[in-house]
Protein backbone atom coordinates (compact mmCIF):
# COMPACT_ATOMS: atom_id res chain seq x y z
CA UNK A 1 0.00 0.00 0.00
CA UNK A 2 1.32 3.37 -0.84
CA UNK A 3 0.63 6.67 0.83
CA UNK A 4 -0.37 9.38 -1.58
CA UNK A 5 0.45 12.97 -1.04
CA UNK A 6 -2.62 15.19 -1.28
CA UNK A 7 -2.63 17.03 -4.55
CA UNK A 8 -2.32 20.74 -4.99
CA UNK A 9 -5.94 21.53 -5.66
CA UNK A 10 -7.12 19.63 -2.63
CA UNK A 11 -4.88 21.65 -0.37
CA UNK A 12 -5.93 24.98 -1.79
CA UNK A 13 -9.36 24.78 -3.38
CA UNK A 14 -9.76 27.48 -6.02
CA UNK A 15 -12.60 29.84 -5.23
CA UNK A 16 -15.37 29.99 -7.82
CA UNK A 17 -16.42 33.20 -9.50
CA UNK A 18 -14.03 36.06 -10.17
CA UNK A 19 -10.67 35.02 -8.78
CA UNK A 20 -7.04 35.63 -9.59
CA UNK A 21 -6.91 33.17 -12.49
CA UNK A 22 -10.03 34.63 -14.11
CA UNK A 23 -8.59 38.13 -13.83
CA UNK A 24 -5.32 37.00 -15.36
CA UNK A 25 -7.21 35.31 -18.20
CA UNK A 26 -9.25 38.42 -18.97
CA UNK A 27 -6.09 40.51 -18.76
CA UNK A 28 -4.31 38.18 -21.21
CA UNK A 29 -7.32 38.33 -23.56
CA UNK A 30 -7.36 42.13 -23.62
CA UNK A 31 -3.60 42.42 -24.05
CA UNK A 32 -3.44 39.83 -26.83
CA UNK A 33 -6.36 41.35 -28.76
CA UNK A 34 -4.85 44.82 -28.42
CA UNK A 35 -1.29 43.84 -29.24
CA UNK A 36 -2.23 41.46 -32.08
CA UNK A 37 -2.62 44.02 -34.92
CA UNK A 38 0.74 45.66 -34.27
CA UNK A 39 2.74 42.43 -34.08
CA UNK A 40 5.02 41.53 -36.98
CA UNK A 41 3.66 38.71 -39.14
CA UNK A 42 6.06 36.05 -37.92
CA UNK A 43 5.35 36.80 -34.27
CA UNK A 44 1.61 36.77 -34.83
CA UNK A 45 1.84 33.42 -36.59
CA UNK A 46 4.02 31.97 -33.84
CA UNK A 47 1.65 33.20 -31.15
CA UNK A 48 -1.33 31.88 -33.10
CA UNK A 49 0.15 28.39 -33.30
CA UNK A 50 1.30 28.52 -29.65
CA UNK A 51 -2.18 29.37 -28.41
CA UNK A 52 -3.68 26.59 -30.53
CA UNK A 53 -1.17 24.13 -29.12
CA UNK A 54 -1.87 25.49 -25.67
CA UNK A 55 -5.53 24.61 -26.19
CA UNK A 56 -4.55 21.03 -27.00
CA UNK A 57 -2.30 20.83 -23.94
CA UNK A 58 -5.09 22.28 -21.82
CA UNK A 59 -6.98 19.07 -22.56
CA UNK A 60 -3.93 17.03 -21.55
CA UNK A 61 -3.80 18.98 -18.29
CA UNK A 62 -7.26 17.73 -17.44
CA UNK A 63 -6.24 14.12 -18.16
CA UNK A 64 -3.01 14.51 -16.20
CA UNK A 65 -4.92 15.86 -13.23
CA UNK A 66 -6.92 12.66 -13.48
CA UNK A 67 -3.62 10.76 -13.41
CA UNK A 68 -3.58 9.77 -17.08
CA UNK A 69 -0.86 10.49 -19.63
CA UNK A 70 -1.92 10.03 -23.23
CA UNK A 71 0.59 9.31 -25.97
CA UNK A 72 -2.24 9.53 -28.49
CA UNK A 73 -3.50 13.11 -28.33
CA UNK A 74 -2.35 13.37 -31.93
CA UNK A 75 -5.43 11.33 -32.86
CA UNK A 76 -7.81 14.16 -31.98
CA UNK A 77 -5.45 16.91 -33.01
CA UNK A 78 -5.24 15.30 -36.45
CA UNK A 79 -8.96 14.53 -36.64
CA UNK A 80 -9.77 18.15 -35.86
CA UNK A 81 -7.41 19.41 -38.54
CA UNK A 82 -8.66 16.91 -41.15
CA UNK A 83 -12.32 17.63 -40.32
CA UNK A 84 -11.75 21.33 -40.98
CA UNK A 85 -9.70 20.55 -44.07
CA UNK A 86 -12.15 18.03 -45.50
CA UNK A 87 -15.00 20.55 -45.38
CA UNK A 88 -13.01 22.81 -47.62
CA UNK A 89 -11.53 20.02 -49.72
CA UNK A 90 -14.73 18.15 -50.54
CA UNK A 91 -17.58 20.57 -49.97
CA UNK A 92 -15.92 23.89 -50.66
CA UNK A 93 -16.97 25.27 -47.29
CA UNK A 94 -14.56 27.99 -46.22
CA UNK A 95 -16.20 29.36 -43.09
CA UNK A 96 -13.99 29.36 -39.99
CA UNK A 97 -16.84 28.95 -37.51
CA UNK A 98 -18.32 25.97 -39.37
CA UNK A 99 -14.89 24.38 -39.75
CA UNK A 100 -14.03 24.71 -36.07
CA UNK A 101 -17.42 23.38 -35.05
CA UNK A 102 -16.75 20.36 -37.26
CA UNK A 103 -13.29 19.90 -35.72
CA UNK A 104 -14.69 19.83 -32.22
CA UNK A 105 -17.70 17.70 -33.15
CA UNK A 106 -15.71 15.01 -34.97
CA UNK A 107 -13.06 14.77 -32.24
CA UNK A 108 -15.65 14.64 -29.48
CA UNK A 109 -17.78 12.06 -31.29
CA UNK A 110 -14.82 9.71 -31.77
CA UNK A 111 -13.79 10.26 -28.15
CA UNK A 112 -17.25 9.34 -26.89
CA UNK A 113 -16.95 5.95 -28.62
CA UNK A 114 -13.30 5.24 -27.74
CA UNK A 115 -13.87 6.56 -24.24
CA UNK A 116 -16.00 3.55 -23.40
CA UNK A 117 -12.88 1.43 -23.88
CA UNK A 118 -10.20 3.77 -22.61
CA UNK A 119 -11.99 4.68 -19.38
CA UNK A 120 -11.06 1.22 -18.09
CA UNK A 121 -7.34 1.71 -18.64
CA UNK A 122 -4.70 3.31 -16.42
CA UNK A 123 -1.00 4.07 -16.41
CA UNK A 124 1.07 2.77 -19.29
CA UNK A 125 -1.85 0.75 -20.64
CA UNK A 126 -3.83 3.94 -21.14
CA UNK A 127 -0.78 5.47 -22.81
CA UNK A 128 -0.28 2.44 -25.06
CA UNK A 129 -3.91 2.01 -26.15
CA UNK A 130 -4.27 5.70 -26.96
CA UNK A 131 -1.01 5.45 -28.86
CA UNK A 132 -2.36 2.49 -30.82
CA UNK A 133 -5.51 4.41 -31.79
CA UNK A 134 -3.60 7.41 -33.03
CA UNK A 135 -1.23 5.17 -35.00
CA UNK A 136 -4.25 3.50 -36.60
CA UNK A 137 -5.40 6.89 -37.87
CA UNK A 138 -1.87 7.62 -39.07
CA UNK A 139 -1.73 4.30 -40.93
CA UNK A 140 -5.13 4.95 -42.50
CA UNK A 141 -4.32 8.49 -43.64
CA UNK A 142 -0.95 7.54 -45.08
CA UNK A 143 -2.62 5.03 -47.40
CA UNK A 144 -5.72 7.07 -48.33
CA UNK A 145 -4.98 8.70 -51.65
CA UNK A 146 -8.29 10.63 -51.62
CA UNK A 147 -6.89 12.55 -48.65
CA UNK A 148 -3.48 13.08 -50.20
CA UNK A 149 -1.65 10.16 -48.52
CA UNK A 150 1.59 11.29 -46.83
CA UNK A 151 1.38 14.77 -48.37
CA UNK A 152 -1.99 15.67 -46.89
CA UNK A 153 -3.78 18.56 -48.56
CA UNK A 154 -4.14 22.31 -48.37
CA UNK A 155 -7.07 24.38 -47.16
CA UNK A 156 -8.04 28.03 -47.05
CA UNK A 157 -10.72 30.12 -45.36
CA UNK A 158 -12.88 32.96 -46.67
CA UNK A 159 -15.53 33.81 -44.09
CA UNK A 160 -16.14 33.62 -40.36
CA UNK A 161 -19.76 32.93 -39.42
CA UNK A 162 -20.79 34.38 -42.79
CA UNK A 163 -18.70 37.54 -42.38
CA UNK A 164 -16.04 37.83 -45.12
CA UNK A 165 -12.46 37.87 -43.82
CA UNK A 166 -11.04 39.79 -46.78
CA UNK A 167 -7.79 41.62 -46.20
CA UNK A 168 -8.19 41.33 -42.42
CA UNK A 169 -7.87 37.55 -42.57
CA UNK A 170 -4.63 37.32 -40.63
CA UNK A 171 -5.80 39.57 -37.81
CA UNK A 172 -9.24 38.05 -37.57
CA UNK A 173 -7.83 34.52 -37.48
CA UNK A 174 -5.44 35.53 -34.74
CA UNK A 175 -8.29 37.07 -32.76
CA UNK A 176 -10.36 33.93 -33.30
CA UNK A 177 -7.58 31.79 -31.86
CA UNK A 178 -7.20 34.15 -28.91
CA UNK A 179 -10.92 34.04 -28.20
CA UNK A 180 -11.13 30.24 -28.57
CA UNK A 181 -8.13 29.77 -26.28
CA UNK A 182 -9.62 32.21 -23.76
CA UNK A 183 -13.00 30.48 -23.74
CA UNK A 184 -11.33 27.08 -23.42
CA UNK A 185 -9.14 28.22 -20.53
CA UNK A 186 -11.97 29.97 -18.71
CA UNK A 187 -14.30 27.03 -19.23
CA UNK A 188 -11.64 24.63 -17.99
CA UNK A 189 -10.96 26.81 -14.97
CA UNK A 190 -14.65 26.80 -14.04
CA UNK A 191 -14.88 23.07 -14.70
CA UNK A 192 -11.87 22.29 -12.51
CA UNK A 193 -13.44 24.23 -9.63
CA UNK A 194 -16.74 22.40 -10.01
CA UNK A 195 -17.69 19.27 -8.12
CA UNK A 196 -17.06 16.99 -11.10
CA UNK A 197 -13.81 18.75 -11.95
CA UNK A 198 -12.43 18.40 -8.44
CA UNK A 199 -12.96 14.65 -8.64
CA UNK A 200 -10.12 14.50 -11.18
CA UNK A 201 -7.32 14.91 -8.65
CA UNK A 202 -9.21 12.73 -6.20
CA UNK A 203 -9.15 9.93 -8.75
CA UNK A 204 -5.43 10.37 -9.26
CA UNK A 205 -4.83 10.21 -5.52
CA UNK A 206 -7.00 7.20 -4.81
CA UNK A 207 -9.63 5.80 -7.12
CA UNK A 208 -11.05 3.34 -4.70
CA UNK A 209 -11.93 5.98 -2.15
CA UNK A 210 -13.70 8.00 -4.82
CA UNK A 211 -15.81 4.95 -5.63
CA UNK A 212 -16.60 4.47 -1.95
CA UNK A 213 -17.78 8.03 -1.77
CA UNK A 214 -20.32 7.22 -4.44
CA UNK A 215 -18.85 8.77 -7.57
CA UNK A 216 -18.37 6.79 -10.76
CA UNK A 217 -14.68 6.88 -11.62
CA UNK A 218 -15.28 5.56 -15.11
CA UNK A 219 -17.86 8.20 -15.88
CA UNK A 220 -15.61 11.02 -14.70
CA UNK A 221 -12.70 9.70 -16.74
CA UNK A 222 -14.93 9.25 -19.78
CA UNK A 223 -16.25 12.82 -19.56
CA UNK A 224 -12.76 14.24 -19.01
CA UNK A 225 -11.48 12.21 -21.94
CA UNK A 226 -14.14 13.64 -24.25
CA UNK A 227 -13.44 17.18 -23.07
CA UNK A 228 -9.73 16.78 -23.67
CA UNK A 229 -10.41 15.32 -27.13
CA UNK A 230 -12.70 18.22 -28.03
CA UNK A 231 -9.98 20.69 -27.04
CA UNK A 232 -7.40 18.77 -29.06
CA UNK A 233 -9.80 18.84 -32.03
CA UNK A 234 -10.25 22.60 -31.70
CA UNK A 235 -6.49 23.09 -31.49
CA UNK A 236 -5.98 20.88 -34.54
CA UNK A 237 -8.58 22.84 -36.52
CA UNK A 238 -6.96 26.15 -35.59
CA UNK A 239 -3.47 24.96 -36.53
CA UNK A 240 -4.75 23.49 -39.81
CA UNK A 241 -6.35 26.82 -40.74
CA UNK A 242 -3.33 28.85 -39.59
CA UNK A 243 -0.85 26.78 -41.58
CA UNK A 244 -3.24 26.19 -44.47
CA UNK A 245 -2.20 22.56 -44.71
CA UNK A 246 -2.88 19.25 -42.95
CA UNK A 247 -0.85 16.01 -43.13
CA UNK A 248 -0.75 12.60 -41.42
CA UNK A 249 2.30 13.53 -39.31
CA UNK A 250 -0.21 15.25 -37.02
CA UNK A 251 -1.32 11.78 -35.85
CA UNK A 252 2.19 10.29 -35.61
CA UNK A 253 3.23 9.51 -32.06
CA UNK A 254 6.04 12.07 -32.02
CA UNK A 255 3.44 14.86 -32.33
CA UNK A 256 1.65 13.50 -29.26
CA UNK A 257 5.06 13.30 -27.62
CA UNK A 258 5.56 17.03 -28.14
CA UNK A 259 2.23 17.74 -26.45
CA UNK A 260 3.31 15.54 -23.54
CA UNK A 261 6.54 17.50 -23.41
CA UNK A 262 4.74 20.85 -23.18
CA UNK A 263 2.40 19.51 -20.51
CA UNK A 264 5.32 18.28 -18.39
CA UNK A 265 7.27 21.48 -18.95
CA UNK A 266 4.34 23.70 -18.01
CA UNK A 267 2.92 21.63 -15.17
CA UNK A 268 -0.71 21.17 -14.25
CA UNK A 269 -0.87 23.88 -11.62
CA UNK A 270 -3.02 26.36 -13.56
CA UNK A 271 -5.03 26.62 -16.77
CA UNK A 272 -2.60 29.35 -17.82
CA UNK A 273 0.37 26.99 -17.63
CA UNK A 274 -0.27 25.11 -20.93
CA UNK A 275 -0.32 28.38 -22.89
CA UNK A 276 2.83 29.63 -21.23
CA UNK A 277 4.48 26.25 -21.95
CA UNK A 278 3.35 26.27 -25.57
CA UNK A 279 4.64 29.81 -26.14
CA UNK A 280 8.05 28.92 -24.68
CA UNK A 281 8.11 25.70 -26.72
CA UNK A 282 7.25 27.42 -30.01
CA UNK A 283 9.67 30.27 -29.44
CA UNK A 284 12.59 28.00 -28.59
CA UNK A 285 11.71 25.71 -31.49
CA UNK A 286 11.56 28.54 -34.03
CA UNK A 287 14.96 29.84 -33.03
CA UNK A 288 16.50 26.40 -32.66
CA UNK A 289 15.33 25.42 -36.17
CA UNK A 290 16.91 28.59 -37.47
CA UNK A 291 20.28 28.43 -35.76
CA UNK A 292 20.93 24.85 -34.72
CA UNK A 293 18.50 22.34 -36.26
CA UNK A 294 20.42 19.28 -35.05
CA UNK A 295 20.43 20.08 -31.37
CA UNK A 296 16.76 20.99 -30.95
CA UNK A 297 15.69 17.62 -29.57
CA UNK A 298 18.82 17.50 -27.44
CA UNK A 299 17.64 20.70 -25.76
CA UNK A 300 14.12 19.29 -25.38
CA UNK A 301 15.27 16.03 -23.83
CA UNK A 302 17.67 17.68 -21.41
CA UNK A 303 15.06 20.22 -20.35
CA UNK A 304 12.54 17.45 -19.81
CA UNK A 305 14.94 15.49 -17.58
CA UNK A 306 15.75 18.60 -15.57
CA UNK A 307 12.06 19.41 -15.11
CA UNK A 308 11.24 15.85 -14.04
CA UNK A 309 14.11 15.81 -11.56
CA UNK A 310 14.00 19.28 -10.08
CA UNK A 311 10.56 20.74 -10.89
CA UNK A 312 8.05 17.89 -10.77
CA UNK A 313 5.24 20.46 -10.79
CA UNK A 314 6.51 22.03 -14.00
CA UNK A 315 7.47 25.64 -14.61
CA UNK A 316 4.21 26.83 -13.10
CA UNK A 317 5.24 25.52 -9.69
CA UNK A 318 7.91 28.25 -9.56
CA UNK A 319 5.12 30.82 -9.19
CA UNK A 320 3.04 28.90 -6.70
CA UNK A 321 6.06 28.01 -4.61
CA UNK A 322 7.01 31.65 -4.24
CA UNK A 323 3.47 32.51 -3.31
CA UNK A 324 3.43 29.90 -0.55
CA UNK A 325 6.69 31.15 0.95
Amino acid at each position, binding site marked *: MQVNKPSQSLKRPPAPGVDRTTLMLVGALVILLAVGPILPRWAMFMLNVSLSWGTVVLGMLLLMRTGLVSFGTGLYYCLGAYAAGALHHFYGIADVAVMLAASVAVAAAVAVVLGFLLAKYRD*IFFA*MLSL*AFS*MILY*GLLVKTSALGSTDGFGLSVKTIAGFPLGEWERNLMFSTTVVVAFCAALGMHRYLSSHQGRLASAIRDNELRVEYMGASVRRVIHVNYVISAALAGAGGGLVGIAIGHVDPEMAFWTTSGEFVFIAILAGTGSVLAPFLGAIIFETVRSFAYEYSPNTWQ*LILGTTMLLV*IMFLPGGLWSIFTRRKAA
Partner: protein
Amino acid sequence: MNQFLAIVIDGIIYSSWLFIIAVGLTLIYGVMKILNVAHGSLYALGAYAATAFGGYWLAQGYPPIGSYGMLVLAAVFVGLVAGPLIERGLLRLMYGKDEVVLVLVTYAVFLILEDMTKLAFGVDPLSIPEPYGLLGSFEIGELMYPTYSLVLVLVSVFVAVALALFLGRTRHGKVLQAVIHDREIASAVGINVSRVYLVTFTAGVMLAALGGALTAPTISVQPGIAAEVIVLAFAVVVIGGLGSLGGAALGAVIVGMVRAWAVHKWPEVELFSVYAVMALVLIMRPKGLFAAPEARKI
Protein backbone atom coordinates in the same frame (compact mmCIF):
# COMPACT_ATOMS: atom_id res chain seq x y z
CA MET B 1 -1.14 -22.07 -52.82
CA ASN B 2 1.94 -20.26 -53.98
CA GLN B 3 0.70 -17.03 -52.49
CA PHE B 4 -0.06 -18.74 -49.22
CA LEU B 5 3.50 -20.06 -49.09
CA ALA B 6 4.84 -16.62 -49.91
CA ILE B 7 2.79 -15.07 -47.10
CA VAL B 8 4.01 -17.65 -44.60
CA ILE B 9 7.66 -17.26 -45.55
CA ASP B 10 7.49 -13.46 -45.59
CA GLY B 11 5.68 -13.66 -42.27
CA ILE B 12 8.40 -15.81 -40.72
CA ILE B 13 11.14 -13.48 -41.90
CA TYR B 14 9.31 -10.39 -40.71
CA SER B 15 8.43 -12.03 -37.39
CA SER B 16 12.06 -12.90 -36.77
CA TRP B 17 13.08 -9.33 -37.33
CA LEU B 18 10.31 -8.07 -35.04
CA PHE B 19 11.34 -10.49 -32.31
CA ILE B 20 14.95 -9.29 -32.37
CA ILE B 21 13.96 -5.63 -32.14
CA ALA B 22 11.33 -6.23 -29.43
CA VAL B 23 12.87 -8.82 -27.12
CA GLY B 24 15.18 -6.35 -25.36
CA LEU B 25 12.24 -4.09 -24.64
CA THR B 26 10.25 -6.85 -22.96
CA LEU B 27 13.32 -8.02 -21.00
CA ILE B 28 13.90 -4.55 -19.56
CA TYR B 29 10.23 -4.09 -18.74
CA GLY B 30 9.95 -7.52 -17.16
CA VAL B 31 12.81 -6.97 -14.76
CA MET B 32 12.85 -3.23 -14.18
CA LYS B 33 9.26 -2.21 -14.99
CA ILE B 34 10.56 0.44 -17.34
CA LEU B 35 8.86 0.86 -20.71
CA ASN B 36 11.93 2.06 -22.53
CA VAL B 37 10.97 4.57 -25.24
CA ALA B 38 14.68 5.02 -25.97
CA HIS B 39 14.79 1.42 -27.21
CA GLY B 40 14.24 2.69 -30.77
CA SER B 41 17.18 5.09 -30.50
CA LEU B 42 19.42 2.30 -29.26
CA TYR B 43 18.32 0.28 -32.27
CA ALA B 44 19.28 3.23 -34.47
CA LEU B 45 22.58 3.58 -32.63
CA GLY B 46 23.29 -0.10 -33.31
CA ALA B 47 22.55 0.41 -36.99
CA TYR B 48 24.84 3.45 -37.20
CA ALA B 49 27.61 1.68 -35.29
CA ALA B 50 27.28 -1.25 -37.70
CA THR B 51 27.84 1.00 -40.72
CA ALA B 52 30.86 2.52 -38.99
CA PHE B 53 32.42 -0.77 -37.79
CA GLY B 54 31.57 -2.71 -40.94
CA GLY B 55 32.62 0.17 -43.17
CA TYR B 56 35.97 0.40 -41.42
CA TRP B 57 36.54 -3.36 -41.73
CA LEU B 58 35.76 -3.37 -45.45
CA ALA B 59 37.76 -0.21 -46.12
CA GLN B 60 40.83 -1.90 -44.64
CA GLY B 61 40.47 -4.62 -47.26
CA TYR B 62 39.96 -7.43 -44.75
CA PRO B 63 37.96 -10.46 -45.95
CA PRO B 64 34.30 -9.37 -46.30
CA ILE B 65 33.05 -12.43 -44.44
CA GLY B 66 34.40 -10.79 -41.29
CA SER B 67 31.88 -7.98 -41.64
CA TYR B 68 29.31 -10.23 -39.93
CA GLY B 69 31.54 -10.28 -36.89
CA MET B 70 31.74 -6.50 -37.07
CA LEU B 71 27.94 -6.22 -37.01
CA VAL B 72 27.81 -8.21 -33.78
CA LEU B 73 30.79 -6.35 -32.37
CA ALA B 74 29.01 -3.05 -33.09
CA ALA B 75 26.00 -4.22 -31.09
CA VAL B 76 28.14 -5.37 -28.16
CA PHE B 77 30.03 -2.09 -28.22
CA VAL B 78 26.83 0.02 -28.15
CA GLY B 79 25.44 -2.14 -25.36
CA LEU B 80 28.55 -1.88 -23.19
CA VAL B 81 28.84 1.87 -23.61
CA ALA B 82 25.24 3.10 -23.68
CA GLY B 83 23.75 0.54 -21.28
CA PRO B 84 25.77 1.32 -18.14
CA LEU B 85 25.85 5.02 -19.00
CA ILE B 86 22.04 5.35 -19.12
CA GLU B 87 21.33 2.97 -16.24
CA ARG B 88 23.98 4.22 -13.82
CA GLY B 89 23.94 7.83 -14.93
CA LEU B 90 20.21 8.42 -15.11
CA LEU B 91 17.72 5.63 -14.50
CA ARG B 92 19.22 4.80 -11.12
CA LEU B 93 18.16 8.21 -9.88
CA MET B 94 14.59 7.48 -10.95
CA TYR B 95 13.81 4.10 -9.41
CA GLY B 96 10.74 4.14 -7.24
CA LYS B 97 9.01 6.73 -9.38
CA ASP B 98 5.78 6.01 -11.20
CA GLU B 99 5.92 3.80 -14.30
CA VAL B 100 4.49 6.67 -16.34
CA VAL B 101 7.21 9.03 -15.11
CA LEU B 102 9.79 6.48 -16.22
CA VAL B 103 8.16 6.41 -19.67
CA LEU B 104 8.62 10.19 -19.78
CA VAL B 105 12.25 9.88 -18.62
CA THR B 106 13.09 7.38 -21.35
CA TYR B 107 11.19 9.57 -23.83
CA ALA B 108 13.59 12.37 -22.87
CA VAL B 109 16.50 9.96 -23.46
CA PHE B 110 14.97 9.16 -26.85
CA LEU B 111 14.95 12.86 -27.77
CA ILE B 112 18.54 13.32 -26.60
CA LEU B 113 19.84 10.25 -28.42
CA GLU B 114 18.07 11.31 -31.64
CA ASP B 115 20.22 14.42 -31.85
CA MET B 116 23.36 12.79 -30.52
CA THR B 117 23.15 10.31 -33.40
CA LYS B 118 22.69 13.16 -35.86
CA LEU B 119 25.66 15.01 -34.42
CA ALA B 120 27.86 11.92 -34.48
CA PHE B 121 26.89 10.43 -37.85
CA GLY B 122 25.38 13.34 -39.79
CA VAL B 123 21.93 13.49 -41.36
CA ASP B 124 22.78 11.85 -44.69
CA PRO B 125 21.69 8.24 -45.22
CA LEU B 126 24.43 5.67 -44.63
CA SER B 127 24.50 2.10 -45.81
CA ILE B 128 26.50 -1.10 -45.57
CA PRO B 129 25.05 -3.42 -48.21
CA GLU B 130 27.99 -5.88 -48.38
CA PRO B 131 26.87 -8.41 -45.73
CA TYR B 132 23.47 -8.53 -47.40
CA GLY B 133 24.74 -9.10 -50.94
CA LEU B 134 27.53 -11.47 -50.00
CA LEU B 135 25.31 -14.45 -49.25
CA GLY B 136 23.34 -14.43 -52.48
CA SER B 137 19.88 -15.87 -52.51
CA PHE B 138 18.05 -19.17 -52.45
CA GLU B 139 14.86 -20.50 -53.98
CA ILE B 140 11.80 -22.10 -52.47
CA GLY B 141 9.64 -23.33 -55.32
CA GLU B 142 9.53 -20.35 -57.67
CA LEU B 143 10.18 -17.80 -54.98
CA MET B 144 13.57 -16.17 -54.50
CA TYR B 145 14.72 -15.12 -51.04
CA PRO B 146 17.93 -13.44 -49.93
CA THR B 147 19.98 -15.83 -47.80
CA TYR B 148 20.56 -12.98 -45.38
CA SER B 149 16.91 -13.28 -44.32
CA LEU B 150 17.65 -16.85 -43.30
CA VAL B 151 20.44 -15.54 -41.08
CA LEU B 152 17.92 -13.22 -39.40
CA VAL B 153 15.58 -16.14 -38.74
CA LEU B 154 18.38 -18.25 -37.28
CA VAL B 155 19.65 -15.42 -35.08
CA SER B 156 16.19 -14.74 -33.67
CA VAL B 157 15.60 -18.42 -32.93
CA PHE B 158 19.02 -18.57 -31.31
CA VAL B 159 18.30 -15.49 -29.17
CA ALA B 160 14.91 -16.87 -28.12
CA VAL B 161 16.28 -20.31 -27.17
CA ALA B 162 19.34 -18.88 -25.44
CA LEU B 163 17.25 -16.48 -23.35
CA ALA B 164 14.71 -19.17 -22.45
CA LEU B 165 17.47 -21.56 -21.38
CA PHE B 166 19.25 -18.84 -19.46
CA LEU B 167 16.11 -17.86 -17.56
CA GLY B 168 14.95 -21.39 -16.82
CA ARG B 169 18.09 -23.44 -16.45
CA THR B 170 20.88 -21.34 -15.00
CA ARG B 171 21.50 -19.95 -11.55
CA HIS B 172 21.75 -16.39 -12.82
CA GLY B 173 18.50 -16.85 -14.69
CA LYS B 174 16.73 -17.96 -11.56
CA VAL B 175 18.15 -15.01 -9.66
CA LEU B 176 16.68 -12.81 -12.38
CA GLN B 177 13.30 -14.50 -12.00
CA ALA B 178 13.42 -13.90 -8.27
CA VAL B 179 14.01 -10.20 -8.88
CA ILE B 180 11.14 -10.11 -11.39
CA HIS B 181 8.86 -11.78 -8.91
CA ASP B 182 9.60 -9.61 -5.93
CA ARG B 183 12.34 -7.08 -5.85
CA GLU B 184 12.32 -6.47 -2.12
CA ILE B 185 12.35 -10.10 -1.06
CA ALA B 186 15.07 -10.79 -3.60
CA SER B 187 17.28 -8.14 -2.11
CA ALA B 188 16.42 -9.37 1.40
CA VAL B 189 17.78 -12.83 0.61
CA GLY B 190 21.02 -11.33 -0.54
CA ILE B 191 20.61 -10.79 -4.26
CA ASN B 192 22.41 -7.73 -5.52
CA VAL B 193 19.39 -6.17 -7.23
CA SER B 194 21.28 -3.09 -8.33
CA ARG B 195 23.74 -5.26 -10.26
CA VAL B 196 20.95 -7.35 -11.75
CA TYR B 197 19.37 -4.12 -13.02
CA LEU B 198 22.64 -2.97 -14.53
CA VAL B 199 23.27 -6.27 -16.30
CA THR B 200 19.67 -6.56 -17.51
CA PHE B 201 19.59 -3.05 -18.90
CA THR B 202 22.91 -3.54 -20.63
CA ALA B 203 21.70 -6.82 -22.12
CA GLY B 204 18.49 -5.14 -23.28
CA VAL B 205 20.42 -2.32 -24.92
CA MET B 206 22.70 -4.87 -26.58
CA LEU B 207 19.68 -6.69 -28.01
CA ALA B 208 18.24 -3.41 -29.33
CA ALA B 209 21.58 -2.58 -30.90
CA LEU B 210 21.86 -6.10 -32.33
CA GLY B 211 18.48 -5.61 -33.99
CA GLY B 212 19.74 -2.36 -35.50
CA ALA B 213 23.11 -3.80 -36.52
CA LEU B 214 21.53 -6.78 -38.28
CA THR B 215 18.99 -4.55 -40.02
CA ALA B 216 21.59 -2.02 -41.18
CA PRO B 217 22.65 -4.02 -44.29
CA THR B 218 19.04 -4.17 -45.53
CA ILE B 219 18.03 -0.52 -45.17
CA SER B 220 19.42 2.95 -45.60
CA VAL B 221 20.38 4.12 -42.15
CA GLN B 222 19.03 7.65 -41.61
CA PRO B 223 17.34 9.84 -39.00
CA GLY B 224 13.78 8.79 -38.27
CA ILE B 225 14.28 5.01 -38.10
CA ALA B 226 14.18 5.13 -34.30
CA ALA B 227 10.68 6.61 -34.14
CA GLU B 228 9.31 4.02 -36.57
CA VAL B 229 10.86 1.02 -34.87
CA ILE B 230 9.86 1.87 -31.34
CA VAL B 231 6.13 1.88 -32.05
CA LEU B 232 6.42 -1.46 -33.85
CA ALA B 233 8.30 -2.88 -30.86
CA PHE B 234 5.62 -1.50 -28.55
CA ALA B 235 2.94 -3.23 -30.61
CA VAL B 236 4.80 -6.55 -30.43
CA VAL B 237 5.41 -6.56 -26.69
CA VAL B 238 2.01 -5.17 -25.77
CA ILE B 239 0.24 -7.88 -27.77
CA GLY B 240 2.17 -10.65 -26.06
CA GLY B 241 2.06 -9.11 -22.62
CA LEU B 242 4.75 -6.74 -21.32
CA GLY B 243 7.66 -8.52 -19.73
CA SER B 244 6.94 -11.97 -21.10
CA LEU B 245 9.51 -13.66 -23.33
CA GLY B 246 6.99 -16.08 -24.81
CA GLY B 247 4.64 -13.15 -25.23
CA ALA B 248 7.20 -11.24 -27.28
CA ALA B 249 7.68 -14.28 -29.52
CA LEU B 250 3.94 -14.73 -29.95
CA GLY B 251 3.44 -11.01 -30.54
CA ALA B 252 6.18 -11.03 -33.17
CA VAL B 253 4.59 -13.98 -34.98
CA ILE B 254 1.10 -12.42 -34.90
CA VAL B 255 2.26 -9.02 -36.11
CA GLY B 256 4.60 -10.58 -38.68
CA MET B 257 1.93 -12.82 -40.15
CA VAL B 258 -0.77 -10.13 -40.17
CA ARG B 259 1.52 -7.74 -41.92
CA ALA B 260 2.71 -10.32 -44.47
CA TRP B 261 -0.92 -11.16 -45.17
CA ALA B 262 -1.80 -7.50 -45.56
CA VAL B 263 1.12 -6.83 -47.90
CA HIS B 264 0.03 -9.62 -50.23
CA LYS B 265 -3.73 -9.43 -50.02
CA TRP B 266 -4.65 -5.89 -49.06
CA PRO B 267 -1.70 -3.48 -49.31
CA GLU B 268 -3.74 -0.43 -48.30
CA VAL B 269 -4.09 -1.64 -44.71
CA GLU B 270 -0.45 -2.75 -44.30
CA LEU B 271 0.64 -0.03 -41.90
CA PHE B 272 -2.64 0.22 -40.08
CA SER B 273 -3.09 -3.55 -39.59
CA VAL B 274 -0.31 -3.78 -37.00
CA TYR B 275 -1.86 -1.15 -34.74
CA ALA B 276 -5.35 -2.47 -35.31
CA VAL B 277 -4.19 -5.84 -33.95
CA MET B 278 -2.48 -4.08 -31.06
CA ALA B 279 -5.65 -2.17 -30.17
CA LEU B 280 -7.79 -5.27 -30.56
CA VAL B 281 -5.62 -7.34 -28.23
CA LEU B 282 -5.49 -4.53 -25.68
CA ILE B 283 -9.28 -4.30 -25.79
CA MET B 284 -9.78 -8.06 -25.37
CA ARG B 285 -6.96 -8.66 -22.92
CA PRO B 286 -5.78 -5.36 -21.49
CA LYS B 287 -2.52 -6.77 -20.16
CA GLY B 288 -1.66 -8.74 -23.29
CA LEU B 289 -2.11 -12.38 -24.21
CA PHE B 290 0.46 -13.90 -21.85
CA ALA B 291 0.10 -11.73 -18.77
CA ALA B 292 -0.79 -13.36 -15.49
CA PRO B 293 -3.77 -12.06 -13.53
CA GLU B 294 -2.83 -9.46 -10.95
CA ALA B 295 -4.32 -8.78 -7.55
CA ARG B 296 -5.81 -5.32 -7.18
CA LYS B 297 -3.69 -3.14 -4.95
CA ILE B 298 -5.23 -0.51 -2.76
